[in-house]
């Protein structure tokens, strides 16, 4: 058992990859494929839970040397508090999402072969996300970013519609640009430090940044813009609404809920573990992040308000929520960072439940626009209840998970003596209510339609209920989870 625990950091990454490559063998037996995907999802969640418990109890990061080669030469995996936190979130969300897609994809995706391909890409994405959480090597980050990006493109284009192919193509172009910038940034760090391991690169860059300030600037800006494109930071978000609204609903949930967060975690790790707090303050990166975050919150929310299609509105809402997380990364204090991590987790759960319930409503009614969904709350009570819980959580009503994250972000920005982010967070919450509550109003308080719209099947109901319960549990008893986030924040700020 102890050997399994010691190997957990690498096992959580390779287990999904391992199953992904077996799946094509069983393409004809789709039940078996779905069973395997759910099984590996639950196994991954249990593994992530063990890993998080291990890190939480022992209070030291788990370090793993791939191939037995020590750090400056070999690839090092490091499961600290940040990694354990994100791993837990990604592993949890992927289980209900795969449960939701059971027996549900053939309408949107196509025949058995195409559905199997969907699951292969899905598992590759899960593996890449786990890898992003645990890796401590800069080039490894790039490789995993590429794996995740290409799987995302495949997932977007998996829907059998011309619109999906177009969205996937524009996503591919933008994302390749982002990858190139990330690789460039990593290259600059490697040129001046000679290391790809994050810890060694951090030491190297702290010694020589004064003699090479321009290179550090270039590395900073390349990495910021590269990950900005990947995670849809405001002016670079243009690909996201098309891609996330054109994908099949489970894919939209995993893309908006987890994939975007993976890139943000990579950005967080590179900024704090490679550049470190001193350099971020010296180059005023934290101000840039806060500014970009505030602009993204307001602009994303206003753009979301202007949408009439439900899934596009949710996709633009992701642009706004990425703003909160980027802003929190720039706050650079314990409250702000723990708030941003908690908000990242709560948004991962909330956006998944919103996209899944929206997908169920659209599949049942065949209507895409919000005002056409009048009275759907009476016909599909469980789906709409899950949507309502998600909306309340995203708005940040107390007792729902979004509140804790937003509260910590506000406290963090006030600790800095900076009122503007706090005000923007409140304004963003009001705008969030403005674009999500009309959906609830239309669904519950409009006359009930004649059509025979029904709640989805049992497995899908279980998926929606478990995600909605997670929103409530994170909001009512955030204790251990918030503590893990706080420890992660302390860990990030400890590196000077």
């Amino acid at each position: 058992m102890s050997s399994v625990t010691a190997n957990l950091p690498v096992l959580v990454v390779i287990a999904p990859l391992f199953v992904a490559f077996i799946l094509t063998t069983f393409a004809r037996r789709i039940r078996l494929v779905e069973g395997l995907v759910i099984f590996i999802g639950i196994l991954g969640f249990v593994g992530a839970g063990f890993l998080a418990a291990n890190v939480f109890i022992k209070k030291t990061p788990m370090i793993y040397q791939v191939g037995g080669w020590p750090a400056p030469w070999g690839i090092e995996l490091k499961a600290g508090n940040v990694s354990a936190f994100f791993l837990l979130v990604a592993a949890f969300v992927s289980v209900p999402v795969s449960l939701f897609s059971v027996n549900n994809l053939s309408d949107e995706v196509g025949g058995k072969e195409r559905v199997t391909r969907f699951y292969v890409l899905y598992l590759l994405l899960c593996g890449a996300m786990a890898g992003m959480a645990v890796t401590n090597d800069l080039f490894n980050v790039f490789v995993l970013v590429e794996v995740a990006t290409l799987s995302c493109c495949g997932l977007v284009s998996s829907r059998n519609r011309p619109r999906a192919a177009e969205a996937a193509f524009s996503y591919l172009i933008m994302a390749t640009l982002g990858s190139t910038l990330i690789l460039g940034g990593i290259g600059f760090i490697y040129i001046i430090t000679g290391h790809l391991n994050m810890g060694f690169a951090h030491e190297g860059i702290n010694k020589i940044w004064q003699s090479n300030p321009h290179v550090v600037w270039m590395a900073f800006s390349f990495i910021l813009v590269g990950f900005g494109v990947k995670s849809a930071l405001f002016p670079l978000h243009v690909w996201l609404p098309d891609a996330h609204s054109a994908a099949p609903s489970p894919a939209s949930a995993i893309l908006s809920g987890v994939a975007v967060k993976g890139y943000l975690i990579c950005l967080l790790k590179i900024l704090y573990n490679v550049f470190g707090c001193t350099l971020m303050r010296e180059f005023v990166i934290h101000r840039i992040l806060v500014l970009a975050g505030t602009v993204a919150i307001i602009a994303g929310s206003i753009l979301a308000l202007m949408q009439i299609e439900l899934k596009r509105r949710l996709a633009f809402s992701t642009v706004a929520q990425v703003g909160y997380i980027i802003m929190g990364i720039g706050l650079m204090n314990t409250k702000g960072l723990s708030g941003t991590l908690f908000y990242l987790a709560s948004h991962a759960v909330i956006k998944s439940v919103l996209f899944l319930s929206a997908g169920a409503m659209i599949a049942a009614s065949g209507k895409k626009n919000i005002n056409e969904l009048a009275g759907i709350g009476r016909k599909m009570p469980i789906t709409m209840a899950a949507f309502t819980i998600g909306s309340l959580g995203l708005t940040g009503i107390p007792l729902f998970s979004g509140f804790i994250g937003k509260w910590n972000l506000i406290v963090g920005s006030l600790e800095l003596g900076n009122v503007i982010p706090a005000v923007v967070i409140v304004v963003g919450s009001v705008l969030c209510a403005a674009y999500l509550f009309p959906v609830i109003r239309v669904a519950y308080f409009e006359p009930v339609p004649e059509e025979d719209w029904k709640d989805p099947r049992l497995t899908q109901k279980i998926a929606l209920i478990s995600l909605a319960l997670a929103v409530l549990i994170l909001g009512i008893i955030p204790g251990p989870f918030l503590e893990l986030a706080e420890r992660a924040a302390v860990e990030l700020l400890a590196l000077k």
Partner: protein
Amino acid sequence: MKDFILKRISAVILPFICIYGFYVILHGHISPGGSFAGGIIVGLSLIAFATVYGMKKARAELPEKALVSIESYGTLWYVIMGLVGIFKGVPFLANKLAGVNVGEQGTLFSGGLILLISAGVGIRVASTIVTLFFALVEDES
């Protein structure tokens, strides 16, 4: 009969190109080259076969299903070889620590797991190249 010379010549040299590709794959760890370069050579020999003898014959020899399973199992093979380390009680992908050394120049079987890993990656690269070529050609027609 206008492409008689082309077909005869390629029938003679393509097997050698293919064998050279496998040579590069298998000697990747002890001489210049490697599984990717060797896989490309093998793949290109198959592409040359397809261009000379026509897509229909090439499809009959290399069905899509076989290519897809080679791609999947080539990668799976890599993971399995990595897991050997874990079963031996050392880290993932560990080679020397699992009881074999890193290889000597000129001796093929001196690299331990590296040879087996390269073989998997090599055929995977070859089948990927061929799949890409088929996808592009069949898309146009």
